[in-house]
């Protein structure tokens, strides 16, 4: 059995209510018969080419701000592509490192889990990813609501958001 492979085989979810936010900044794949040029993307002010890009961004934003929102049981969620397909792979792997670090887990201890414990661990790991991502989405949403149309007026907006997030205090990010 391979642990990372198992983790990467999972498909994290996001809360359905974040779908509009994701659509707002992500180019819909398959639209325009794959002819969507970079120019068109830019004109539509879409910052992410794929949902997983925005998802990774949200994880890192949540992670950096130490802001997690757990998804409650029964809450409506949207599933998307498995981690193993996220690109660039080195970023996805780095995120996995980050989660291990944040879980303060003893790696050797994991190797001594039985299969059931291991499966539980993988599930917890996925939940952890999801809670950071949803925390990140919440930060984006707050900032967008606060700035309104101004949010889209700078190409640096998302970069600024992650750069300045160190100052984030659950509600305020000064851009």
């Amino acid at each position, binding site marked *: *059995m*391979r642990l990372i492979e198992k983790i990467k085989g999972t498909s994290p979810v996001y809360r359905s209510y974040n779908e509009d936010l994701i659509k707002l900044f992500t180019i819909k794949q398959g639209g325009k018969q794959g002819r969507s040029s970079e120019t068109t993307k830019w004109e539509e002010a879409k910052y992410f080419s794929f949902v997983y890009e925005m998802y990774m961004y949200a994880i890192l934003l949540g992670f950096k701000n130490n802001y997690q929102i757990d998804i409650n049981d029964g809450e409506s969620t949207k599933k998307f592509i498995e981690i193993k397909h996220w690109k660039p792979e080195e970023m996805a792997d780095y995120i996995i490192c980050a989660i291990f670090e944040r879980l303060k887990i003893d790696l050797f201890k994991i*190797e001594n889990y039985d299969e059931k414990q291991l499966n539980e661990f993988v599930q917890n790991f996925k939940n952890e990813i999801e809670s950071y991502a949803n925390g990140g989405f919440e930060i984006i949403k707050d900032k967008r609501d606060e700035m309104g149309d101004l949010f889209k007026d700078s190409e640096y907006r998302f970069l600024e958001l992650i750069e300045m997030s160190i100052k984030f205090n659950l509600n305020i990010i000064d851009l």
Partner: protein
Amino acid sequence: MCYYGINEITFEKGLNIIAGDNGYGKSKIFDAIYWVVYDKCHDVNYKEPRSTELIKETIISDRHKHEAEDGVISCSVSLIFLDEKKNNRYTLKRIFKGTKNGKEFTFGNKSKLSVKEKVRNLDSQFINSKDDIDRILNKIMPLNIRDYMWFQGEAIDRIIDFKNSDSLLKAINLLSDISTFDEINNIAETFKKKTLGKLNQKKQEQSDDQEASERIKNSIESMVEKITKSELDLADKENDLFEHNEELAITIEKIQAAEEIKHLNIETNKLYKSIESDSKYLETLKMSLHQKMFSELWILKGMEEISEEFKRLYKKYQNDRSNKRAEILSEKKASEIVKNIGFAKLPANMPRANYLEQMLEDEQCYVCGQKALKESEAYALIEAHLDKINVSEVSIDDSEVANFNFYDEFDKLFTNSISVKNKIGKIDDNIENYENIVSNLKNELDQNQNEYNRKSEILNSLLRQESLSVMKAEEITEKIKTLNTLIRSTEKKIEKIKYEIDFQNDELNELNRSLDKLVTGDIDDVFLKGAEIGQKLHDLSKSTRERVFAELIEKLEIQANRHYKEMTEGNKAARGIIKIKKSGRNYSPDIVNNSGESLPGMNTSNMILIKLATIMAIISARESTRDNELYTLISDAPLSALGENYSLGFCTTVSNVYKQSIITSKEFYVDKDLQNTLLNSEHINLGSLYEITPNLVEEERESRNKLQTKIDRIK
């Protein structure tokens, strides 16, 4: 229309002004007068007067159409004209009828005009004959002067079109007595031909070779015709040459500006292309930003600590695993050693390899607590133990260490984290580099854009000032070449025609001499004197016509300058004097300096003033008629085409040139100071001033069903 109910306006002697803002109904008063006389109203969509048959119900007030009960509905305008000198009074009434049925309207095609005439102290009577009606209409406003007395402000340009040099000559011919001299000239010409014809006939009769004389006489007639034709050709060509030279002079004047325009155009195009390409590059850079956020890991900026933390986890994991493995190995080895070799000085539970390595490093045995310095026996013993363990063939199964082995995966994660950390270290520089490129590009774009705006503004102002387009400017050099070629070719043609005329005159003289030679006896003096008188009379009428015309032009210039000076008094920008220049056979007004040189760069207001001054000069110079006394100048918004400083000057001139004039104006409504100056002016002979206003505010005027224009007399 916006006039509802009964509205009455009395126009006095002098200047009468209808003042109102845009859309208040000024033009409709102009239209109403025009409609009565010509059965046409100005149609804004067609920019020309159109007949009642075409415009139909639009002529009737919307309010009336809305409020009238079912049945006949109508509108009418009555005009009363007074000829005070003769005590004559003419009443013209035009009416247009239709029927209303609910929301449906039916209108006839024709309006009806009734005319009443009251001559002196006699009773007034209706005029029924069409000829009599036309006679009266022509009295009110003769057709030949209508265009110059009754015009839309925006049509001034068309009345005297500088580009059409015929237009001033046409106006002079129409409004002066010069046509009488033309008629005299024609009579003299005919007389000359007749007397000459009779002389030649007589010569033929007294010829000793009738046949030859007949042939020569015919040749003479044919030659005279040829000469007349050649002379006309010559005049045409000379006129062409004059026009080409004029055009060349104007074109040459523009060449410097054209060169500058060409240069500026090239520069602005270059800047435009540079802006376009920089903008595209900037967009590409902007677009690449979100790619770089991932491909160059920019969103991991400042997250090196993850790598550090993971390294700590991983090292611990490595240690734990290694220790566990060593522990197992050590246990296995110990039992092997005890079993196979045995060591007296080390316990059975022999330390694991890493402890032995530490002992060697520290030169101390941690089993007995004694020193184990290098090259000592104790040191060698520890080394031997370590060697035994290392060379041991004892194997450990992964499952003995842990349930699972994720070493490869964790190792891969670790290796990746180190590589990512290195990349994160370079992100700041990469972003700074990117931002510098973007910022430099933006600065360059701003600079180019400012330069482009500056140069475009100069270019456009030059184009406006010189009335040129870029294309025309580019064509100007070519045009000069073409004009020069045209001038050379016209000059050659003129030379040729002149040569032909000389030749034809020689031929004619020769023919006359041949005819004279055949004559026998003396020709009766009556014929000789008759031909001589015919020639002299013709010469005299021609020179008289030329003299009268020259005097007329001189008088026109004096009058035009007087009006121009009056009208431009309020504006210091206006300069120069009007000179009516001969252009070939025609004439056109120009503005010159005191030395008679043309002043370039006249603006539109100036041009229109010159035209207005010239029209008024033609009217006021016509001393033998009473046009300015008999007829009323009626103009819709003539001030709209002039600059704001010309309004009072125009009114002064108009009120002095015309006994009665009616103009509509927005200027005297919106500018109350100007209105006050008008009311208090000593120079303006103001007959009346009316203000017209709608009864509804602008927001309520959308539905015209309650709309009505109010007329208030201010003076």
